[in-house]
């Protein structure tokens, strides 16, 4: 089913439930991986993904179709994941950098991470990037999103995104080749 039809059905109370389930089926996996790369832990990603879809469900009436529903959901997922990390940092009374280090320590012991040494180093390198660069790198390198879509999700110009991505790749390459 095409997204514009799904949106129409989502806004009607009689077809809302079915259309929402279609939307979840279509985007759950992509959004899961997007969130997982930000929060790293599977259980945290599951919580954030559920909250993302609940927000989509509650706010679908206010979605004004200025952007694609896909980028709108990505924006919600990104904001949910980032605010989840902020709450977590507050809980541990830690700075953003300290939290990233804590997340890496947890990742080493995580049942749902079986990365080798280079993959662990990659996560360590990503964790050293500023937040925006980290998002841009993940979205471009792993999710292969278009710059135009990323621009709509992150509300940043395409030029700035390209520059961020370039810097992020260089920094990560430098860290990984230091091995």
């Amino acid at each position: 089913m095409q997204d514009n039809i799904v949106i129409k059905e989502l806004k009607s109370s009689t077809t809302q439930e079915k259309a929402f389930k279609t939307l979840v089926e279509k985007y759950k996996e992509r959004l899961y991986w997007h969130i997982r790369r930000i929060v790293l832990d599977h259980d945290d990603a599951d919580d954030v993904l559920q909250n993302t879809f609940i927000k989509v469900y509650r706010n679908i009436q206010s979605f004004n179709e200025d952007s694609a529903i896909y980028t709108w959901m990505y924006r919600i997922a990104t904001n949910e994941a980032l605010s989840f990390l902020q709450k977590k940092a507050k809980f541990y009374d830690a700075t953003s950098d300290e939290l990233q280090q804590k997340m890496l320590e947890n990742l080493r012991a995580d049942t749902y991470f079986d990365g080798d040494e280079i993959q662990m180093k990659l996560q360590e390198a990503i964790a050293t990037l500023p937040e925006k660069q980290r998002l841009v790198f993940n979205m471009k390198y792993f999710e292969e999103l278009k710059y135009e879509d990323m621009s709509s999700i992150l509300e940043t110009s395409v030029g700035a995104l390209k520059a961020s991505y370039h810097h992020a790749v260089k920094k990560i390459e430098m860290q990984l080749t230091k091995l």
Partner: protein
Amino acid sequence: MKRKVSKNKIDFSVPENYFSDFDKRLESSINTSEAIPKATGFKVPDGYLDNFGDRLWNKIDQNKSSVRTSKIRRLYAMSSIAAILILGFIIMKPKNTFATDQSEELTTFDINTYIDEGFINLSTYDIIETFEGVSLEDIEMADPIPREEIIEYLNQNNIDNYTLTVE
């Protein structure tokens, strides 16, 4: 006579969508660094994504009933406050402002009888609101309910609805 062969019509073929996807594949190759692995090592539990839709829908249903409970509780709380205010107003009102035909003051005994006969029907929510933060030991009961009766009541009744945490 020489046959003219068009350069475009030689007998080679390309995979379907080769040219339409070319840009995308080219961009992907440019964006892929040899030094940076594409695999991340993240895993998900077996069947996680297959069950996700059902779990999500359950949570949405729970939230809906939780919102309903919250609205009902608010309604109960508002009614209780209104009842307490009216009762307070009646009890605390100075004597000289009572209606002229009310010749006698209400005695404590009258009020107790009124409550005992069940004219004031406090709901569980009213009781929770009224005694919130009050230690049970500080509540003086004229006719205490035996411990066995309380345990039997709790065993027979589902008290989960009263212990829900509402957003």
